[in-house]
């Protein structure tokens, strides 16, 4: 068992919510027992937060810009072919200039173009990892929380085991033994992140399952899948969404670290971590090769982290008191 308290505990003292970036570490706590909220109320609340929290608003704007870059990369990149297989050995390692704002790399590719295409890779990985992790985690969490008993115990003990590895470590071990590719990175990271969602959903499901109206529904013969669909999932949606936005930054950093270690995505796929790794030995002579992809990772992770933190404060009742 890890130190994150069992989320289902009844009389849990309301400790402070853990900060963003720590999401993969201390785990979600106490986000469990709230009814689903009408969409309008939620939006109004978000807007209010955006006005109050400049940082989160900035994060949201940054993130929109990054997503736009990723989607529009083939059209806005100055040399779109450089995001793929093209190479220009004769133009290798040109410093930043009007033609190449971020300079060129070892085989003459435009770094700005590759940074833009890299946004696609990073965002794709983040979406795929979190989608997989949330799908697997929520399913197992619902089963655990709703079924209870030994099934719950087994699932929770398995999540304990997975949570005993720091995120980078387990995905690193997995990525080393599997062969380097985008799929490997996604699988390795998803295998590391799912337990958080399992725990979160299990606690929601358990609290819902013991409520009067659910008991009543069960007595009336409403089938279990329907109860889960009608009552458990809607209640989990908000905490899972908050958790997703908090985790995205961590996933981006960890996938970059895997590529940096040479066990993630490989060339010619444009990926920021890989670009840092390939340019690492050039840093003292051709600084631009490493600097821009590194900044891209920093900015993206930052955008996700401040946005996630802001979202949590907006949607978490305890955050709202601040």
């Amino acid at each position: 068992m890890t130190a994150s308290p069992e989320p289902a505990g009844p009389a849990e003292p309301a400790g402070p919510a853990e900060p963003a970036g720590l999401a993969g570490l201390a785990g979600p706590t106490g986000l469990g027992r709230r009814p689903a909220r009408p969409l309008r109320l939620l939006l109004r609340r978000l807007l209010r937060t955006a006005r109050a929290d400049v940082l989160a608003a900035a994060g949201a704007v940054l993130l929109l810009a990054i997503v736009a870059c990723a989607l529009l990369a083939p059209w806005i990149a100055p040399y779109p072919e450089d995001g793929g297989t093209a190479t220009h050995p004769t133009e290798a390692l040109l410093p930043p200039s009007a033609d190449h704002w971020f300079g060129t790399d070892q085989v003459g590719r435009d770094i700005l173009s590759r940074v833009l295409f890299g946004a696609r890779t990073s965002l794709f990985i983040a979406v795929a990892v979190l989608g997989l992790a949330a799908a697997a985690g929520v399913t197992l969490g619902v089963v655990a929380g709703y079924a209870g008993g030994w099934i719950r115990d087994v699932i929770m003990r398995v999540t304990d085991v997975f949570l005993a590895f720091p995120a980078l470590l387990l995905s690193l071990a997995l990525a080393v033994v599997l062969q380097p590719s985008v799929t490997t990175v996604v699988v390795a990271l998803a295998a590391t992140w799912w337990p958080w969602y399992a725990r979160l959903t299990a606690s929601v499901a358990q609290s819902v399952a013991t409520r009067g109206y659910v008991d009543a529904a069960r007595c009336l013969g409403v089938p279990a899948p329907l109860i889960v669909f009608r009552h458990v999932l809607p209640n989990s949606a908000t905490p899972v969404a908050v958790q997703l936005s908090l985790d995205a930054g961590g996933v981006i950093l960890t996938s970059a670290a895997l590529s940096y270690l040479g066990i993630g995505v490989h060339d010619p796929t444009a990926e920021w971590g890989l670009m840092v790794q390939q340019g690492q030995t050039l840093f003292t002579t051709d600084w631009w090769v490493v600097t821009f992809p590194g900044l891209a990772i920093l900015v993206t992770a930052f955008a996700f982290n401040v946005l996630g933190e802001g979202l949590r404060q907006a949607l978490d009742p305890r955050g709202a008191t601040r």
Partner: protein
Amino acid sequence: MRWQRCLLAAGTAAALALAAACGGGQVRGAGDRSSAPSGAGGAAPPATGTTFVYAPNLDVVTDWDPASSYSNEIVAMQNIYESLTKYNIRTQKVEPRLATAWESSKDGKTWTFTLREGVRFHTGKPLTAEAAKDAIQRTKDKGAGAAYIWDSIKKIKAKDDLTLEFKLKYPAPLDLLASADFAAYIYDTAAAGSGDLEKWFAEGRDAGTGPYTVDSWQKGKEVELSLTAFDGYWGGWQGAKFTRVEFRVTPELTTAAQLVQRGEVSFVPRLNPQLFAQAAAQGAQTTQAPSFQNLLALFNTESGPLKDERLRKAVQQAIDYDGLVAALKGAGVAASGLVPQGLFGHVAGRTPKQDLAGAEALLKEAGHGPGGKPLTLTMTYAQGDADQQLLATLLSSTLSTLNVKLEAEPLQWTTQWDRGKSADTGKRQDIFVMYWYPDYADAYSWFANVFRSSDTPSFNLTYLKDDTFDEAVDKLNELAAVDKEAALTSYADLQTRLIDELAAVAVPYVMNYQRVLAGGIGGYVDNPAYPNVVFVYDLTPGA
């Protein structure tokens, strides 16, 4: 109450530290010295002497046994141990080391070596023909690492104190074999007395005759190994020489470059072209030397699309050899044929050129190319090797213009090799990229190990089965021992057959060493027959 918690934590930490402290102290760096064999040839020179610091990028020693050592430790072992002969890169001939003279019978099956007088092992024992015989016999019997260099030996005889006679099963160039980079070391087999010699070595001890002996070995520390001058060395210690050698493991190239710049290390074996140019501009000594190590792109001649000779030739011609060498900026030089320059068997004037029109024509002929059927090829190469990466990037870029998709996968060696050897031919790659280098200064291993057929693939990852080729390879060694001219012709013919006729392989480049040496150090000569080795004894320290 919260303060109690802090106190408790602090208390626990203090107790732990105390418990550790009671364990007893030991002086760092001196552990191995105390257990070094007594009877060594006198006290080491004072620690104030000049130190040569070598900055390897990987751990140095994995195997201390001179019989089986077959890895990075060569950079230390060649300064601790000596072989009977040594290959001279300038003359391209074998020259004396522990043996001063040798001769062979006409049929090349009997070899007689005369040993140097007055040589002593670090254990104190003098070098005799009997001792040399025991060392070679032990290495041959263990059969590990590069021990196969002694395979031709039928019988070794110590005719007198300094005369060693070898009877061979078949003719072989034993003087050359005796200069091999591994497994040719002469050592004192009685160093451990009645104990287990292998275990004795494993603790970081040596029994060589070379100029330096082990001072301390701390696996995992930054300065992993230090050697100190052996007072009883036969060459003597007149003149200015380094009296100490340290190996400071430095994995990052940028770090290594900064360290040599600041004078904290004396030698970095390999830098990238940019750092190399920077070091040269900032006043460090730099030398470049072509190696005996070339990159091979082995085409699958047995299964998959490249079974079609036309497609192999197309890929061969699509490689941008000049562009690659230009992009390597000195880390690689153009290859001419399969055998690197400086080795017997090298042929000049065979530098390959890119021919895109030719490649396109060949692809069209086979129904592929622009407008034709799409073609997908798989290529495996070494993960983490920036130069091979460059080949992969450039080649996939070129091939994509020819409507060929190259799936280049960087893999760990074990994975790459396993896949190449896979019994299921469907799992094998179309192009296998690897470096090849000889264990002794000879071209034979390229032909015998990489291209000669075998029932289960080992290194012959072209899966070539060509009887006339095999027959010619089997005659090479004998030919080299008796008729040099004929051997040279045969080597040239075999390369034509492999590269031009069968198109089984492309040689994108020969690796080029870019060494950086701290200012002032004199006498450095690169010897690719002993990859990355610095013979520190031959150097003169700067002012």
